[in-house]
């Protein structure tokens, strides 16, 4: 009871820490209508409208350099066996003045344009529209599910359609006829999960920079050919679609969903923003976390810098510097618990860093988990670190005790400590990713003398360590709460 009262008083006084909106990808992530992001040879590739695309070493910093012949619109990529297949619209979508569209597929052994194995082959038309019918064969997207390969395509000119392709060659199954599954959207994409087929598509206005109303919506069906109903039961072929992602922060016009399944409970999605207001309103790539709630995908946000409590999902305890607990002065309570309090109500200042810092050791200090008491040794400032690389969607972060340079670090023994000064050493850099259940995975960039990927783990109720990440166990999961 006492703790709650003190906490409430402390929280009321505690000023909020400045938060910086998450930045879309680093480098020159300029692209429109991005494909699914693909990994090949340790690098990341994404292709866009007009030919070419982007390459990244880590999924965070992007540069031009990917090569895709054929030009046209809105490609997609999928790996089938040992080959990478690309689909793109070679015509339609207003190109050549009409809606006579065509989807082509082709393949290459590698996406690395510098490799002798690079080179697209077997360019084949797999779907067309005649320019008169209510469909325009552009914006293709692959789905491989249950051993079968599907391709959706279409735009606002009529229907979104689905056709079946050969899962080995990405050519059309002979005799297969297109099925209309949605209407008045574009940039369709599909996912398959737990017996449900999810159809995502972009509603709103494209290609108008900061005034684009592009937003991503979703419906689901037990059958790949629909009907795809939204959360209100409205069929997407009648315009339905549950909102998945819309404008936020400094980013306007979200479109062209692409799934990135990193495994171990980490799913992300790629998209473009029609306008990044911090980058001259250019169209940029972003990669964001994706969660699931009640059978529906939910767009998450990349981790934002700020000051947080780091809470273990296992026991709900907070990560803290292992230093003496310093009591706050107990306020006068009047006659005690058993009677109503008397006297004026006044706020009580939270414990300040300056009150406790002089008594902290100056060298390395252990960390542990404990009851969260809004104390200075439990508040962590998490900030992106420039020029040290990143991972899909985010840069690496440093995790320091708020108001100090004391940084969380991995040790060669696979444990976690704090060091008095942040040096940007790899063991002091942290990868923070939201999991599909909304909790977070926290991983050091490196552990000295080890190449094993490990994650911050609550090995005991109150003991943190580094261990192999287990997506099915709460000991591997964390929450970030405003302090």
């Amino acid at each position, binding site marked *: *009871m*006492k703790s709650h009262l003190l906490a409430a008083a402390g929280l009321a006084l505690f000023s909020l820490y400045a938060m910086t909106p998450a930045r879309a990808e680093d480098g020159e992530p300029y692209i429109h209508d991005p494909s699914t992001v693909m990994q090949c040879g340790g690098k990341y590739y994404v292709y866009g409208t007009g030919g070419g695309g982007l390459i990244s070493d880590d999924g965070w910093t992007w540069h031009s350099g990917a090569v895709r012949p054929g030009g046209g619109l809105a490609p997609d990529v999928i790996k089938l066996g040992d080959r990478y297949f690309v689909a793109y619209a070679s015509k339609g979508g207003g190109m050549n003045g009409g809606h006579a569209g065509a989807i082509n597929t082709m393949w290459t052994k590698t996406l690395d344009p510098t490799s002798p194995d690079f080179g697209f082959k077997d360019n084949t038309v797999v779907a067309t529209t005649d320019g008169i019918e209510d469909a325009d064969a552009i914006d293709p997207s692959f789905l491989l599910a249950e051993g079968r390969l599907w391709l959706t395509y279409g735009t606002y000119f009529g229907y979104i359609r689905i056709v079946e392709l050969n899962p080995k060659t990405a050519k059309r199954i002979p005799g297969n006829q297109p099925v209309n599954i949605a209407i008045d959207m574009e940039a369709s994409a599909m996912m398959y999960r737990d017996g449900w087929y999810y159809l995502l598509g972009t509603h709103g206005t494209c290609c108008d920079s900061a005034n684009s109303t592009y937003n991503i919506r979703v419906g689901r069906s037990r059958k790949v050919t629909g009907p795809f109903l939204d959360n209100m039961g409205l069929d997407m072929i009648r315009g339905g679609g549950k909102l998945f992602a819309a404008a936020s922060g400094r980013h306007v016009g979200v479109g062209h969903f692409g799934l990135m399944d990193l495994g171990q409970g980490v799913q992300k999605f790629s998209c473009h923003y029609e306008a990044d207001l911090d980058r001259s309103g250019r169209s940029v790539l972003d990669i964001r976390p994706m969660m699931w709630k009640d059978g529906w995908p939910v767009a998450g946000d990349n981790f934002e810098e700020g000051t947080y409590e780091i809470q273990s999902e296992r026991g709900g305890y907070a990560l803290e510097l*292992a*230093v*003496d*607990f310093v*009591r706050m002065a*107990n306020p006068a309570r009047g*006659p*005690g*618990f*058993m009677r109503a309090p008397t006297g004026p109500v006044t706020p009580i200042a939270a414990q300040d860093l300056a009150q406790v810092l002089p008594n902290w050791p100056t060298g390395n200090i252990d960390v*542990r988990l*404990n009851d969260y008491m809004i104390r200075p040794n439990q508040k962590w400032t998490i900030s992106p670190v420039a020029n040290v690389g990143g991972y899909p969607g985010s840069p690496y972060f440093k995790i320091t005790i708020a108001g100090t340079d004391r940084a969380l670090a991995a040790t060669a*023994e*696979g*444990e976690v400590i704090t060091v008095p000064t942040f040096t940007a050493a790899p063991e002091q850099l942290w990868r923070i990713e939201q999991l599909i259940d909304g909790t977070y995975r926290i991983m050091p960039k490196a552990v000295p003398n080890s190449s094993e990927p490990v994650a911050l783990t609550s*090995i*005991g*109720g*109150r*003991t943190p*360590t580094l*261990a192999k990440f287990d997506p099915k166990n709460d*000991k591997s999961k964390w929450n970030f709460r405003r302090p």
Partner: protein
Amino acid sequence: MSVFRRILMLGAGILALSAFQGLSAQPGFPAPPPAPVDTHRSIAPYFARATAHPKAPDADGFLQRWVLLEPIVKPNRSNNVLTDSYVRAAFSTEYFPGQFTVVPHDGDKVTVAGQELAWHALDTSTFNAKIFRFAYGLNKPTYGVIFWAVTVVNSPREIKDIRLAIGSNSASMWWLNDKEVVDVFGDRHMIVDDAVSHRLTLNKGRNVIRGAVINGPGLSDFCVRFIDEKGAPIKDITMNLE
């Protein structure tokens, strides 16, 4: 227990008790029964004398054989003083010779502040060692005390990358083969695997675990086991106190 502790901690116990007594005087509230007098104190059924036979951990890996020293008096009206530095200072104080090295036997005695205290080699009937009941059953102080506990673990093999996992009421520190490996500070409840050591190696053969638990008011107990990287208990070990 925690409510009682807080009342003590705040020095409001008299007020609270008066209030309850006041309630009992009201119509409809029966007078509380008189506190029972325990004239047959015993450490049973919580403890039994350790036998000469090696004892394995229980099904969950908890160590149930300990040599316990009768409590050292360390008065504390509340547990809010049990900070890291206070507990470290309390446990680094030498109360008796060989405190950090001895492997005691049943019946051995030490003298602390002029008071003779005996070691008792015991097997616990529960996964945790109910040291409040140990003190109570022996008519020793139960509040404001320090308990020392020692056990010897024999391992048929060297076991690397395991951890000593403990829980205690209240604060405690634990050493394996004379090296401090895990601790808990503050006003603690006993929770299984509350605190866990860094990765350590259990020697093939003999290993000595030494622990100290400090408590102000309230029940005292502890539980100890080894766990592997996945949190599973280590069970192919025995204790024989030699």
